[in-house]
């Protein structure tokens, strides 16, 4: 159950040369700056780009491209959510959804695919409930808000029963409010279907929140790929070189209504993490995003500090110092083996005598709750 692709394409003076493997289920984020070829890669996977010399694409055992095979777009079982919702203006919401539903039957039958890769055939009612569209069905797309339109577009893509769902920055064109409105739907969708998704984004918070797997792109090539925490935890990745470097760790809820409007979480190693109050009814397992620049290190457990969150860890790896005299330190949390990045100055590193395997305390200044 794997998505394998090796895509080569030239367009003007841009060249895409991307080779990757992604798991056959769960969300793989495709992350990179604009112009790094993320969207072009997705378009190539969907079959919307022609002339891909020497490329090969296979999705969970079905070849879409390569070895003399080139399955046309309409026969690839692909769901595509574009940045712009692209709802058909001459059809109602219901009509837009039916458009996908009517065509999926012919499509799945024609390919004669083996039953193992059928994916989940979601029913109409299931999808509309999942995306909260029950009350919109009779409406004209024009009358919907941006977030609502994008939800319809996502539902429509799901109803085509894709073997692979491609999402090209589906939240980028939305304002913050619509984004917040749509994210819980995505959480639910990804958790309940397990469908393989390639999710293009240049927003670290979306990646940290939604993805299980990460593909880093730069200048038309794939720089790093692997499980989210592994790729994020690398000290030498292009992401680690930027100011946006971050890590993701998981916690359980220990106490929802802790002291002073805080909630108390617990890491796998038993360290307590204090976060702003979490509303009840959220998931038991909480993802936290921690920016590398918000982590400072102490050789001894600090006493009398205003910083609440102090995690015990061991130094796993040190990057070379960069031009600004900063170093990235990779820390391994005990028991869970989760990786945490800390950006500190080269001078501090020397003063503290940081070496690999050393036990250390990490003070975390700020934490972003993801779900």
């Amino acid at each position, binding site marked *: 159950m794997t998505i394998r692709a090796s895509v080569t394409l030239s367009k003007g003076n841009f060249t895409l040369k991307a080779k990757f493997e992604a798991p056959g289920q769960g969300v793989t984020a495709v992350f990179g700056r604009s112009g790094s070829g993320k969207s072009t890669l997705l378009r190539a996977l*969907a079959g919307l780009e022609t002339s891909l010399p020497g490329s090969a694409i296979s999705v969970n055992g079905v070849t879409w491209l390569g070895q003399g095979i080139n399955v046309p777009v309409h026969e690839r079982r692909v769901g595509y959510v574009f940045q*712009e919702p692209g709802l058909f203006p001459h059809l109602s919401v219901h009509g837009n959804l039916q458009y996908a539903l009517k065509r999926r039957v012919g499509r799945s039958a024609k390919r004669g695919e083996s039953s193992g890769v059928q994916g989940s055939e979601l029913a109409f009612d299931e999808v509309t409930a999942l995306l909260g569209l029950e009350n919109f069905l009779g409406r004209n797309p024009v009358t919907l808000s941006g977030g609502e339109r994008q939800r319809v577009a996502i539902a429509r*893509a799901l109803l085509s029963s894709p073997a692979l769902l491609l999402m090209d920055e589906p939240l980028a064109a939305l304002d913050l409010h619509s984004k917040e409105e749509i994210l819980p739907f995505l959480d639910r969708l990804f958790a309940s279907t397990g469908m393989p998704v390639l999710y293009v984004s240049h927003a670290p918070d979306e990646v940290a929140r939604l993805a299980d797997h990460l593909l880093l792109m730069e200048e038309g090539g794939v720089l790093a790929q692997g499980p989210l925490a592994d790729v994020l935890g690398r000290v030498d990745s292009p992401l680690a070189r930027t100011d946006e470097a971050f890590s993701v760790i998981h916690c359980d809820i220990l106490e929802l209504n802790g002291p002073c409007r805080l909630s108390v979480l617990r890491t796998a190693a038993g360290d307590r993490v204090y976060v702003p109050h979490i509303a009840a009814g959220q998931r038991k397992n909480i993802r936290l995003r921690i920016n590398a620049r918000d982590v400072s290190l102490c050789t001894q457990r600090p006493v009398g500090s205003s910083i609440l969150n102090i995690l015990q860890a061991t130094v796993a790896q040190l990057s070379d110092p960069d031009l600004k005299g900063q170093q990235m330190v990779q820390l391994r949390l005990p028991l869970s083996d989760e990786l945490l990045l800390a950006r500190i100055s080269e001078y501090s590193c020397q003063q503290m005598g940081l070496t690999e395997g050393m036990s250390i305390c990490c003070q975390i200044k700020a934490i972003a709750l993801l779900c």
Partner: protein
Amino acid sequence: MSFENDLIALWITLRLALITVLALLVVGTPLAWWLANSRWRYKAVIEAAVALPLVLPPTVIGFYLLVAMGPDGPIGQFTRWLGVGPLAFSFTGLVLGSVIYSLPFVVQPLQSTFSGIGRAPLEVAATLGARPLDRFFTIVIPLSRSGYLTAAVLGFAHTLGEFGVVLMIGGNIPGQTQVLSIAIYDHVESLEYASAHWLAGSLLVFSFFLLLVVYGLNRRFDMVKV
């Protein structure tokens, strides 16, 4: 007698315009689609050829068509090979001439509508499993309603008013190829101003209301589209 003749001319004119428009929509749709989407280097040649009737005097088109339809012309030889009579001075010949004469009035609105739709809706439809023809009939045609309306009405109205081409290849045979505009000319020539008024005035009013309907409907379509 004269009134009856006028009625026949009116009937021939309407029939000619209607058949011409239908033929043009059938021929013009693929042509306009190709012009809107082709990246062929010499596409401009075809575009210029399609637009020619806009600038040429109708008598020029009529003259060349007449020559082509003659026994030694390519069209004439082709029809003889098919075993049908010559097209010159026949209703079928008029239809052919009108199709060429009104071609740009149908192709150009369609082409600009098709270009306006862009690739995005078609790509969405393709990812939803729609085959190319399916995409054309379920996405392009419904999104081109206003373009089709404009094309049909312009083609119809333009055919209604043609004179030079019809005179050249139709030959003004009452009951067969005499159309309204030529009937008016005949009335004026024989100083029957009252009959000329009657015909010309009806044509004027009819054309105006036709255009009124187009612009009115197009606004409604636009409001739906926004």
